[in-house]
Structures are given as structure tokens and as C-alpha cells.
């Protein structure tokens, strides 16, 4: 099932399918959000605040807006 990364719940691990075209696509890819990588949602700030994903060994925080650019495949 395909979703975007802002829709997953804390502790859920998913595989990145693709990054949706947008001016931020390049920034996301540079950080290592690449198709095929697995990410885990670690924390989510209250009231629709930023989300912190684990990617390899790092935790990266994104706004919901940016997370919605990441199409993911549920495991």
C-alpha cells in the first residue's frame, strides 16, 4: 500500500518509493531520502508539528509538508 511519509505512525518503518517532484526534492535527496531506503518515524511533535525520521544512523526532522513529498511503501 502506498502512502506518504506524513501519514505513518510513530515506530512504523517504511520503504521510500519515490520523492514527489517539487522544489524541495533535491534537498531531500541530498540528505539521503532516496528510493529504496527504509525510514522509521521516531517522534512526532504535537498539533501537526514536525516529524523525526530515522534514516540509516541519523534522525532527521521534517515538517509534515516536506514529509508529504515522500511516497512510501508499507512493510
Amino acid at each position: 500500500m502506498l502512502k506518504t511519509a506524513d501519514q505513518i505512525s510513530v515506530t512504523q518503518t517504511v520503504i521510500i518509493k519515490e520523492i514527489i517532484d517539487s522544489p524541495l526534492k533535491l534537498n531531500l535527496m541530498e540528505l539521503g531520502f532516496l528510493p529504496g531506503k527504509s525510514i522509521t518515524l521516531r517522534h512526532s511533535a504535537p498539533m501537526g508539528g514536525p516529524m523525526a525520521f530515522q534514516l540509516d544512523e541519523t534522525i532527521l526532522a521534517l515538517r509534515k509538508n516536506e514529509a508529504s513529498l515522500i511516497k512510501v511503501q508499507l512493510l
Partner: protein
Amino acid sequence: MNKPNTPISALKIPKIAIIGNPNVGKSTIFNQLTGLNQKIGNYPGVTVDKKIGVMNYQGNTYEIIDLPGTYSLNPNSEDEIIANRVLNQSNEAEKPEFVLMVIDSSQLSRGLFLATQLMDLGLSLAIVLNMADISAKRNITIKTFEIFKALRVPILSTDARGEKGLDQIRELIHTRNFSKKGDFIAIEEVVPITLLDEFQTKFQLPNHYQAYQMLRFGRVDKIISQEDRDWIKAKLEELNFDLEAAQLEETKIRYKKITKIVELAVVKELTVKKKKYSIDQIFLHPIFGYLIFAAILLVMFQAIFAWASVPMDLIDGFFAELSGRVNNYLPSGPLANLISEGLIPGIGGVVIFIPQIAMLFGFLAILEDTGYMSRVVFLMDRWMRPYGLHGKSVVPLISGVACAIPAVMAARNIGNWKEKIITIMVTPLMSCSARLPVYVILIGLVVPDKTIGVINLQALTLLGLYFLGILGVLGTAFLLKNILKTTEKSFLMVELPSYRAPRWLDVLLTMYSKSKTFVLEAGKIILAISVVLWVLASYGPSNRMDEIRTEGEIKLATATNPMQVDEIEAETSSLLLENSFMGIMGRGIEPVIRPLGYDWKIGIALIASFAAREVFVSTIATIYSIGGDPEDDLTIRQKLNQQIRPNGEKVYNTATAFSLMVFYAFAMQCMSTIAVVYRETKGWKWPLIQTAYMTGLAYLSAFLVYQILS
């Protein structure tokens, strides 16, 4: 590889640039290599600090350039523009000979992404794999040789948090163990070769990747001439070249190659994955996270208030003493007055801010270094965004409660231009500690010291004034959010690094360099304005000033007891101020400020306290010839209470006092803030708009308050 024994002219100091991703310990290496031999300057056209240091090793001198932390050399922000500008410039004299690339060994692929871009630029490179300790803790082993095999550039594994490894870095620089390998990927795969050739010839660049960088940065780096920028733009349009697609393609190809290297080089130990308990489960908790943040702030500001007041009092005392001694020592005359009453207090007025600046930045450096700061951004971003601010705006805003000067300086690391400008514009509206003396005097004058239930009316008024400041901040930010236009997209992509102990050397150096920057850059303006204000307050247009002085001296001669001496002296200085240029200006603005409930004496205090808000109190003390200790609230209060208007009403009635408090809540009334905004925005545009806006807002609000209450 460059031969270590290449003869180098004694005059030419080798330049080495240090570059790396954010949070990889790059600045620690820079600090340890250079110590106090650092200089902070400016790059033209941007707000990024230029950090250059000198390293001495085995009798040789090296210049080290600390470039801002970036993830790539793509034109995303000012940081990347600067990194590209320094590494890719045509000016051979300015260009670093060698580049030291710092990679966090637990973030190998992200680091290699930038490193391989540097290789493609054709730079002489060496890689430092930093933080070996942390990756060891995470059960990762890195086979450095595999990376070397793939890249063919020297690689050093170190832990810069300890001394270990640092000598190796010095030795590496000393032996010039850098290597120019070139071409990790073929940029010709994503950009038409004819286009690259054309750029390479036009700008006389050594390789295709540099041509590609010119093609990308030509549109954004203002240092490139308008003519060239137009040419680049026309070229890209002419060929209908999709730059964005090319950049994405480059990123994919690069990461693909890097992934292969990393697969060979990194060995993760497959231990049983135990569910590790993360401290962030508390620190980022929806409730406890905020409570902890509030507690940290409380401790921080308590400490700043408690600790900064000691050195501040010492500085105050020292300059007062110095001023007095110089006055006694020099033959009296205009020069002695200028030095003892204009210059020395002016310099004192700059130095007095150092304890607060150093302490605030000390705390901020600790929060940054431990990794907590990005957690603050994570927690606060959602609450700042509706007002056009960023999670990073929290720190400047809250620091504004202590003092707007370090607070505005702390807005430095907000990447987005619009968010940074809004933060700088609203921060001085927070109620800073210099407003407190003004509030205390006026509240004491008109608000009864009564308690209703458990609430003290005076405390309630003070709290109200703080809320008024916050209201001003949010309202203004919201207004600016809708006025300011930008094409830059606001985003938040921030790493939450692992927690670690602060590196005290880095903390100390931050405190030192921030104070130095303030003194050198904002200090000049503050000193200039304070001398101007002093001249206005001590000189007048007529010989009336001299007459007053002579009269005062005659009266003094007849004085019989110390009480009388005090009285006469106070009266004389009051008369002098009345007849000075500033006194005349005070009378001049009376028609304008009458609707706010102020007379010309208050007008003088308004002009004088443009230097700093707390000057209001001492000026009022002089105007009403309050002798004795001008810091004594009670004497001032009694005296102010006795001031009567021609119609028999009190000057400081409730309406006037509240009007004044509201005026001071909003008005700029702080030349140091103006100076620091000038420094941070690199121009007069924003400080002038800000001063005009704040004064206008203060005037209107004070007008409304007075008209409603009177």
C-alpha cells in the same frame, strides 16, 4: 599526490579550507588547529561569517578557512553559495590550495556526497573520518582502505573530540598530503557537452564540473557580474535546458556510486537489535518536552540575570572611576570633557553588554553542542510558523527578554531570509531588561501597591507590559509575514544529532568571538551616537550655558553645608540640560508629544534615552534636579509626584504614566539594537524601517492610551 618537499615560496602562506556536513565536528577541528588565532570577517553580499584562522606547526604558518557546514555544493542557500564561491573562484591568490573534508563516520554516504563533488571540481583533497568513537559505540566498523581504493584520496580516521588524531591532521597539512583525483562522476552524462564546453571557454575554467557549477550558481551568486548573469540566463533559456532535472539526475548517479562504496566499506555488527531506550522519548514528549524546555530557559535566564549583573556593575564602576580620574588628571577644557564625559562613558556603554552577550552565547553554544538546540526547533516550529517565523526563531525571541542585542545576533543561523528578517524585526519588541527600571519607576508612581485576592496590582501591571511586548511581537510578525515577499521556500530539514557532552573550548571560543564581533562592529556606531548625544546634552547655542556654570560656581562658594552643595549642583545641571541643544530639541518636539500627555521635560528624556531606555531614569533625575543617588527610586518618585502642570494637575498622572510605559514598551529607544540590526542585515534599510515602525507604533499606542485614560 603533491610531493611533500615541493619548494614553496616563503612569502606564500598555504591556504587550507575545511568543509563538511553540519554537526560533524568541523568547527572543533578548526578551533583546535587555530586556537585564538581566528579572525571573523564578512563575505560580500551575504550574512555568512567568514572564519579564518592561522595554524602554526613546526615553524610553518598555514591559513585555515572554516567554511559553513553544507550537505552539497548545490545552490540551496547562502552557505552553499559561499562554499562554492571560495572553492571555485578564479582568483588564484584567494583560492585555497588544499581542501580538508570532514566526514562523520556514522554518516558516511552523506559525507561522501559532498566529498565527491569536491573531487569533481578538481580540488586537492584529503578526507578526515571523524567521530570514530561514536560509530564504534554503534557497532559500525569502517574499512578505510575500501574508501581509499574507490576515491584514491588520502583518508585519516580521527576523533577530534580528544587530542588523539589532531596531530595527525596537523601532520597531514604539514606534509601536504592532499590529492587531486578528479572526476568521480561524469557530469557530461547529465549536461550536454556543448553547453559545458561553451561555459568552460567563456569563463576560462579548468574542467567541465566547474563549468557546471558556474551554470548553476551564475543565477544566484551576486558576486558574479550582472553581465555574466544575464549571459548565463540567456544561454539556459536559449537551449531550454532543464537544470533541475539535471541536478536530480546528478544526485541519483552520485548516490548510486557512493552506495556501492559504502556497502563495501561499512561493516555493521549484527547484534541482536535491542530496543534502546531513547532519552528523546522524554525530551521530545508532547508535555514533558515543553516542560523541560521551559525549565532550561528558566535556569538559563536566572543565571544570566544573576551572574551578568556582577561583572556589569564592575564595568559600570570601572568606567565611572576612570572618567573621574581622567577628569581630574587632564587640564579642564572641552577636550577633557569630551574624553571623560563623552568617550569614556561611550566605550563603557559598549563594554557593558559583553557579560550578557558572552553568557547568552555560552549557554546557546552548550545547547547547540549537546545537540539539544535542534530539539528546541523540533518542538517549537509548529508554534512559530503561523506568524511567519521558524522553529529557530524561538531562541532570539526568548533571549530578547534579557537583551535584544545578543538576541538579534542569535537570529544569524535562521537560513530562510524572510524568517530571519521577521525574527530580527520583532525581537526588540520583547520586553528587555533595560525597560524594567522605567516600568518600575512609573508603576510605583501611579499603581497602588495593593493586593486584590492574591494578585498584587503592581505586579499585574508589570506582567501586562510583558504581555504587551509579546502581543507586539506576534502582531508585527503576522503583519510582516503578509507583506514580505520571497521566492525562497520555507522548509525545515534538521538533523537531531546524538546527545553528547559540550566541547568547552568551542563554547569559550564562541563566547569570545561573539563579544569581539559585537565590540568591533556594533561598537563603533554605539560610540558615535553616544558622543553625539553627549555633545547635544552638554552644549548649547548661546553663552547662556557659561552663565549658568558661573552662577552655579558663585552659589557654590556661598554654600555652607554639604546638603546645600548637592542642591546647588543638581540645580545647575538641570539648568544646563534645559539650555543645551537637547533641551531645545525637547521643547521643539513638545507640540508633537503633547497629545501623548508629555511636556518638554519628558521630551528631553525621550531624546536622551534614545541611547538606551534606562537612561530615561537618570535623565529625569537630572531634569528635576534630584540630587543624591539618582538610582534611588524613592527620591525620584517623590520628586516626580510633586511636579505640577500650569493648570495645577500632576505631570505624572495615571494617563501620562501609562502612556509613557506603553511608549517604552514599543519604541526602539536603543541605539545598540539599531547598530546590531545594521550589522546583521548588512545595511541601513532594515534598522531604519524598524526604528520608524517601532516609533510609530509606540506613538500611536501611547496616544490612544493617553486619550482614553485622561
